């Protein structure tokens, strides 16, 4: 194997590919509708966190190796870049997935509490683009829509993006991610471990 130093077998890599698809679909299914509406776009991370919990939990149970989540992050980052997403989003994925991997790794991917925290951190990733927005509105809008965007829209975004919106976004994401993660842990305990899938 080329990757002996990481200890990834072909099976791990294939599992990573399949679960990346599921994580991506889960994110688009519940997050997509939010991102299409300008005034709701800030709640995208909340929507994105709804479904993925059980998928995430099963994934780290199946590939309990350091670096597996980094690959997921890198794959999502590549796909986001080639489909023209904002770089804040793409690198948000990469950074948060890396951190999530490190956190879950502390407990050898077996500790429920640490896995839950890892999932919450993973869900914070898509917020990267909004952090960029808050830091530099002009550059964000000019990246997303380019010159000639109506001043009206920038005003509207700025109007919506007050402190409380950001607070709702962060707190909401953490709450939803916790619930989804708990659901994941419950499914793991109740079903997957018994079925011998997550051995």
């Amino acid at each position: 194997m080329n990757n002996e130093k990481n200890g990834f077998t072909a099976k791990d890599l294939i599992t990573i590919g399949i679960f990346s698809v599921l994580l991506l679909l889960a994110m688009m299914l519940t997050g997509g509708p939010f991102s299409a509406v300008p005034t709701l776009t800030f709640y995208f991370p909340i929507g994105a966190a709804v479904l993925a919990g059980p998928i995430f939990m099963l994934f780290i149970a199946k590939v309990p190796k350091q670096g597996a989540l980094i690959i997921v992050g890198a794959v999502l980052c590549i796909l986001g870049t080639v489909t023209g997403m904002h770089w804040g989003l793409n690198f948000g994925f990469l950074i948060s997935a890396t951190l999530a991997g490190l956190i879950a790794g502390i407990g050898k991917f077996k500790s429920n509490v640490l896995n839950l925290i890892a999932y919450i951190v993973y869900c914070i990733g898509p917020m990267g683009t909004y952090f960029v927005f808050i830091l530099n509105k002009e550059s964000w809008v000019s990246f997303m829509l380019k010159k000639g965007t109506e001043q009206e829209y920038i005003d509207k975004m700025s109007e919506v993006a007050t402190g409380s919106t950001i607070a709702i976004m962060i707190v909401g994401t953490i709450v939803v991610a916790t619930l989804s993660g708990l659901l994941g842990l419950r499914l793991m305990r109740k079903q997957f471990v018994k079925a011998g899938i997550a051995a």
Partner: protein
Amino acid sequence: MITLDPRTKVLLLILTAIFSASIPNGIYTLVWIILTTILGIMLKRALKTARAAIIFAALWLFASFILPNIGGVLHTSLLVWLGLVFKCYPCCMIAALFISTTQIGEFMAAMSKWRVPRSVVIPLAIMFRYFPTVKEDWGHIKDAMTLRGISLSPGYFLKNPGVVVDALYLPILVTASNAADDLAASAVTRGIENPRIRTSRLDIRIRLIDIIVFLIFAVALIVGMGLSTGGYV
């Protein structure tokens, strides 16, 4: 009519991503879509490409001629939404073309010529392969749910959340998990773990046509960057 090296397609995708990130003008997007459409027809994906092009044309005509006559909040929302659609459309279109015209074996062979690490290539290749499968599985799962009288409507969900969650997650995750095992077994049997340099029966080379197509897109990008003055459509 023509076939391209997967590496050329990757380069075209990167060019399009640069294009999307730097040139927002509707009129250039239109040029880019036309180029992509011609490429799609040349690559023998005429029908699907034409459909995508027609959808784009309809949206573009709407943005240029009908949208300015709408006022108020609806105008802003639609404008922004279309702005995002126009931004992602060229990339998504060329990505769809790339995926539908490239065999996984070809893709892997081309990527190994570029010496991209396998830890990235294998997950990406699996993703291409697995997206359609998820769609298919989803159909089966929905049928099975209907058969058991489980519906996805919010009302039913509120009454028995546990049943819906189990009926939804378990089959998806179990099939995914089994698919991973099956694919891994078949890939290992075919020697994916062979540490030597990957060889391929397929003749993958950068040919004249690859260079020509790449140059056409590159020139379009450079000219577009030079002429771009800003503006929306």
